[in-house]
């Protein structure tokens, strides 16, 4: 089969759902009507005292007055604000094991899509912060890192159900201090190449040169096959180079971590040399210095609100970065790079109104429509428009404020976070925990005494009936997974600082 087909098949295996008998999605999504809210559509202004009708996971209607359909669940959002679900363009949540395959300079063989952890509590916490979609990225330990994936925060679903259908896969590059290991070294090991920004460029160029040759070999083979030649041996498949070929063919997005103005321009140059486009620059804290070049190249910029000074390359970071780039025509998003930051991206976006005078809607776009566009999913999410996915957040206050608290977060038309319910459920979970601890304690104390008092008991002892699992919105039961021992490292390679 052609390289393309085999690659697509591999991609399909990588994140297709497992089988027809997989656990069914939790029922058909109910019909929901949100009423009396201030609707921040992002695409066409604000609707005061408006309503949104949700059907089959989509936004069916948006307007000032919508009749309540029979059987619909009504959410009265009087005094509250609804905005599109937040899209975090740089996230490392929901990953089992290390986010870095840091051993080699080019680790494109690793694919984060294969290690999604649907039980990571940070999924729930970020939902509580209004995030509905996240770009799960490999870390920044390598010039060319692993493959990446966009997910929806479908809390309660298995990992196979998290990937955002139809979103193009990505690959993470990293430039600057992190891939050249400026700030730490591993004892007992020689310094890993590259150690300078020059080497970072050559690592990338070297890999793409190989990828280009690999692609040519496969193209030649495929040509012979279509010409009807028989008994051909295909070239050996190289899983490290295939994602790079996809980049060359425009089928995989490049998300590149970078800081300094010169390395930003370097990657644009290299991309041009090999004929591919960079999709987004991540962090890009000096992006404001080269905003025009970014705008001209049509590359998106995904940055922090106000982080700075933790590394030398972050010393020129300014909180005006997002606004300045926006005013120069760059599509800019604000991201978290951490589960904690992702719980208040609405607030981080607000800062660009103070630092750089973005308007209310421009600021909202930083965490909704813009990241959607950057990830190529803006046909489905990023604004409140009829036909789009019902990914929404209801706040008790204008979200662009430090006083806003998310009340409900809806993904695909399902309420996956409900603050009232969360608070009401706490006592029950505490009790369950106490009961299980007491039960285990009792069992442990029983063991040595069994030797004394035991007589042959009849074999038909009634076993404990297995407890009925809780309803979906709570953390899924069971399952402990061991990690391979790495997340303690937050300083060196961490969330790609």
């Amino acid at each position, binding site marked *: 089969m052609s390289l393309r087909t085999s690659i697509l098949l591999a991609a399909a295996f990588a994140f297709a759902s497992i089988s027809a008998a997989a656990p069914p999605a939790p029922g058909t999504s109910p019909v929901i009507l949100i009423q009396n809210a201030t609707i921040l559509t992002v695409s066409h202004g604000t609707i005061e005292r408006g309503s949104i009708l949700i059907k089959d996971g989509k936004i069916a209607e948006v307007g000032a007055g919508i009749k309540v359909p029979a059987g619909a669940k009504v959410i009265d959002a009087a005094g509250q604000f609804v905005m599109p679900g937040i899209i975090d363009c740089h996230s490392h949540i929901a990953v089992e094991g290390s986010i870095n*395959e840091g*051993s080699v300079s080019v680790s494109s063989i690793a694919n984060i899509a294969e*290690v999604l952890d649907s039980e990571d509590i940070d999924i729930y916490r970020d939902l509580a912060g209004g995030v509905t979609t996240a770009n799960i990225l490999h870390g920044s330990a390598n010039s060319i890192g692993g493959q990446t994936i966009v997910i929806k925060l479908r809390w309660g679903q298995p990992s196979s159900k998290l990937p955002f259908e139809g979103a193009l896969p990505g690959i993470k590059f990293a430039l600057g201090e992190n891939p050249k290991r400026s700030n730490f070294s591993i004892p007992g090991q020689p310094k890993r190449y590259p150690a300078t920004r020059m080497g970072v460029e050559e690592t990338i160029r070297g890999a793409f040169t190989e990828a280009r040759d690999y692609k040519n070999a496969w193209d030649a083979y495929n040509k012979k096959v279509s010409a009807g030649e028989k*008994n051909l041996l295909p070239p050996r498949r190289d899983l490290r180079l295939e994602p790079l070929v996809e980049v060359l063919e425009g089928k995989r997005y490049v998300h590149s971590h970078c800081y300094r103005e010169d390395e930003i321009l370097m990657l644009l140059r290299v991309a041009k040399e090999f004929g591919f486009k960079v999709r987004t620059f991540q962090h890009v804290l000096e992006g404001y210095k080269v905003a025009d070049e970014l705008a001209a190249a049509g590359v998106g910029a995904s940055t922090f609100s106000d982080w700075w000074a933790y590394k030398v390359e972050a010393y020129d970071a300014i909180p005006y970065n997002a606004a300045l780039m926006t005013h120069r025509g760059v599509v800019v998003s604000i991201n978290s790079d951490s589960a904690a930051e992702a719980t208040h991206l609405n607030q981080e976006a607000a800062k660009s109104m103070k630092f750089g005078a973005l308007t209310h809607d421009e600021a909202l776009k930083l965490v909704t429509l813009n990241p959607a566009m950057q990830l190529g999913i803006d046909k489905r999410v990023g604004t409140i428009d009829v036909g789009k996915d019902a990914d929404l957040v209801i706040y008790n206050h204008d979200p662009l404020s430090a006083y806003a608290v998310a009340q409900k977060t809806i993904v695909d038309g399902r309420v996956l976070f409900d603050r009232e319910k969360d608070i009401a459920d706490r006592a029950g979970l505490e009790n369950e925990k106490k009961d299980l601890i007491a039960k*285990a304690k009792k069992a442990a104390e029983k063991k*040595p005494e069994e*030797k004394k008092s035991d007589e042959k008991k009849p074999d038909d002892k009634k076993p404990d009936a297995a*407890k009925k699992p809780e309803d979906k919105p709570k953390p899924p*039961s069971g399952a402990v997974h061991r990690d391979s*021992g790495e997340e303690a490292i937050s300083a060196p390679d961490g969330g790609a600082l």
Partner: protein
Amino acid sequence: MRVPLGRIGFFALITAIAAILFLSAGTAAFAQGGEPQYFAIRGVKVVPVSGPPIEDATIVVARGVILAVAKDAAIPADAWVIEGKGLTVYPGLLDALTDVGLPPAPAPAASEGGPRRGGESAHGPEDRPNTTPWRNAADEVSLSDKRIETWREAGFTTVISSPKTGFFPGQAAVLDLAGDRAGNLVVKSPVAIPVSIRATGGFGSGFPDSLMGVLGYEHQVWLDTEWLEKAEAAYNKNPKGLARPRYDRASAALADALEDKALVLLSGNSTLDIRRALELTDRWKVNAAIYGGQAGYEVADEIAAKKIPVLVDLKWPEAEKDGDPDDTPSLRTLRFRDRAPSTPAAFTKSGVKFAFYSGATASPKDLLKAVKKSIDAGLTPEAALRALTLSPAEIFGVADRLGSIEKGKIANLVVTDGDLFNEKTKIKFVFVDGRRFEIREPDKPKDPPKGDITGKWKLSYTTPEGAEESTVDLSMATDGTLTGTVTSHRGTATILSGYLSADKFNFVINFLIEQSYADVKFTGTFDGTTLKGNISVQGFSIDFTGVKPTGNSSLAELSSTHQGDAR
């Protein structure tokens, strides 16, 4: 020249007697010289597993094989008859995944993970890190592994044994736990190719150092295996003009094992890993079984739909003994610990075929207790027994010769004085390949123990190499029986037997010293707070003293003892 027959006969007799004496003085791995190979157990309850139990039956065994099993089977005149009244016979138990019979892996490095020194780090998949699929258990059987005996005494006649370290540690073989020579133990090989995803040494240890890196690596290995076969065939057919494919030992070994229809064993204990293992069987297009499986209660239907068997780890998750008492485990962990033993029952309900294996269980005596836990959680005893006998035999393709008590099958039997899953039941005999092993009770302590020797002790002693320390973690039962472990810089060993009688204690471990296993005996006195005694190994005797390091005094106690002490 004619030698007088009498002289030859005399010498021959002496030699024969000497040989017999020599042989019978050897280890238990050698059969008791001179026993008939013809056994009959009369009037015993037989639980065949392949059919309903038979009361008051007779089993006849010869030449390692079951000749007859029936209510009124004829007993040959020269058979050694064992009266079976009050006894029950089960098929010999199978441990579905272990490394019993193989020398242990070298002791792990002092720190968990960490970088490998000396530039051995792999730089990519081509370096085939931690990959040794050519290792075959059948080639590495070592009769001096004491665990052969301890497993057997716990009722296990058969194990599926495999090297353990690395991503592709090797190939598993079915071994029966008795024989004169290593080769006698091998029943079938290879039967399985275990694949692990957890062997990474962590950040900085060389490729791969992350779970996703491991998976990428393993995908590449399987692709290479498939491709290399084709490439070699094409090259051999007509090498002219073609680049010569590089020989890859790992791919060659995997290809061979797959040809032999070896089952790929995928690790998967949590719901995440089990689901991932199910996906991997599709992606790698292999016949597989999952090992671990403890979160199976959550995903039983999904596993059943894929018709993949599961080897269930009997080391049920539980709180660590050395844990911080203020650390509360998460609700997820508590639920997992609570429900894991219900997995086998869930498997029965959903139609998942499963077997049990020892996992990290240190003492085989704990295995049946662990099975009992799953019976308490809803598994029927019949299903439990099947998971220890016929099911693993079926999974590994040896059900035509093992796993149940049927005429013609290998005579692997466990004879008990009661129900197998009752704690009080004792195992009386074990037959492996028709060889009889009588299981005797370990020496009972003569006097009730004085005091409680339970605890973690630091032993200090001087070996020819210098002063040393070991930690002995002892648990004492009310009758003075001791269990536990001994840890030194050489590694950790489980106490095989031991007791405290009045103030005298002794316990034994079995340790790999240089090339072979040896018993290390600790004997001494316990005065209530310290230990004093000696260690005896291979003829050497070393004195030691033991103290319990203080650890649990409260801050208040400490402050008061130091009030006013200015150092």
